[in-house]
């Protein structure tokens, strides 16, 4: 299997990470060597193996949806790169 530049562009789009030509070539090389290494798994027959989905083998517990930290809105907003005191600000999405 070989990951070509077209695939890199596709993954970069899905990952929302912009990649220029030079980096794309480097990434293709890196990913190919990593996937070559990963292909080793194909030596194993696993048709009858149940996948491990949770290491603890317990069901996830629910807890009640209570507000425990109060009045932290200001602090949270303060961490945003751009805000107008009450809202997070993003580039315009509707023309």
């Amino acid at each position, binding site marked *: 299997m070989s*990951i070509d530049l077209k*695939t*890199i562009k*596709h*993954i*970069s789009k*899905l*990952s*929302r*990470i*912009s*990649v220029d030509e030079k980096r794309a070539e480097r*990434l293709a090389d*890196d*990913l190919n*060597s*990593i996937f070559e*290494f*990963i*292909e*080793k*798994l*194909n*030596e*194993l027959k*696993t048709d009858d*193996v*149940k*996948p*491990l*989905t*949770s*290491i*603890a083998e*317990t069901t*996830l*517990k629910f*807890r009640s949806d209570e507000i425990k*930290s109060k009045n*932290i809105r200001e*602090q*949270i907003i*303060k*961490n*945003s*790169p*751009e805000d107008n005191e009450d809202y*997070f600000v*993003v*580039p*315009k*999405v509707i023309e």
Partner: protein
Amino acid sequence: MSDITKQSLTELVENIKNKKLSSTDVTKAFIQRSEKSSELNAYITDDFTSALDKAKKFDQKPNLDLKLPGIPMAVKDLFCTKNIKTTAGSKILNNFVPTYESTVTENIWNEGAILLGKLNCDEFAMGSSNETSHFGNVQNPIDKDLVPGGSSGGSASAVAGQLTPITIGTDTGGSIRQPASFTGIVGLKPTYGSCSRYGIVAFASSLDQAGPMAQNVKDCALLQEVISTYDSKDSTSINFKRNHYSKELTKNIKGKKIGIPKEYRVDGMSKEIEDLWQKGIQYVKDCGAETIDISLPHTSYALPTYYIVAPAEASSNLARYDGVKYGYRAKGENLIDMYEKTRSEGFGAEVQRRIMIGTYVLSSGYYDAYYLKAQKVRKLIKNDFDEAYKKVDAILTPSTPSSAFKIGEKTNDPVSMYLNDIFTVPVNLAGLPGISIPAGHDAKGYPLGLQIIGKAFDEQNILNIAFAMEEKINFKNKITDWWIK
């Protein structure tokens, strides 16, 4: 006392309890040494001024019943600390100030410890040499231009260099045990579900665990006792009966059965590592334990499995860094362009590589071939351990296939970097506890570690084995203070 920073955590606790030392004495000593040690680059953020204030406050009304009374401690910068910048070693979080505290650090402060600062690490804990940090390489106190290992490289360097009496790291594929081995200290990765993941910047949620990194086994047991609690804020936290690890610590391991897995004798492993392992086998025998040859047949599939599972989970966890609610933001022509530039400029090369691997293996048409396949092999790896534990109580292996390497030596070849974790990764995949203890030196005088792997929730047993071996090994770390002018 001029040698405060040379004391172990246990000694410092005793001296504070006996009022031979005050918290201020101890905190001052570690701050002074940390300030003289900037060349190690172990800290990303220091909190020295307020640490000293807290120490003085502690001394005015000392509560000596606590487990860590007035003990200063720096922690890996992957733990969210309320009102203190938390970066995860990344540019994308370089201005992030959490509004909450991680459960593990909360437990530590509740027992009287005082935050010294936040320690350097590989970006989002993705790395084995601390070279992926946005805040620069960390130096290994053992020798100049030597990596401290990773991802908890700053933590390992800070403990070995006596900048903090003890610390916590996180371990997703070896990030506590490998740097512990590279710097001649003790590092424990607890059972999955033992320490809460709440407030730890997530890398791979089914593998991540916090754990102690210490100068010796007893200190390690004491900190494990503090940080391991059931937490309803982590949905995978497990409510099991936890031991009083430090109180119950014993060197009596007579009759314990220790497995020696033949698959860990990997191609190209140096003779030094093989010799170290043989020495380890002799030590446990000298302690009255019995060794048994065992087989973990799927060992060689662990790393390929890990490099599907961990990036897949990372690509999902790191989707949250979009430049909107916190962290770095790049300018973009529109929303999508802003996301793409933010993530391209905010994440470093290794993190981008792993997000892309993860995105690819989860993408339409490839899920079954990669992710599902990896989950199946992960099951086989876990089954190997389950089988082995029918015959043995613990497993002894080397911690790493080599000693620490030079800065820059492996940065151009991701696969050769990944091979560092060949002995530690299976333990994370199976959710088991593992401890690395310093066990000898190579020809260059660099430390080498041995790993003891336990059954799930059996931390006490591997701590006991480590405690017994520690006495026989009698390891002395060779720290020359080369970085102090």
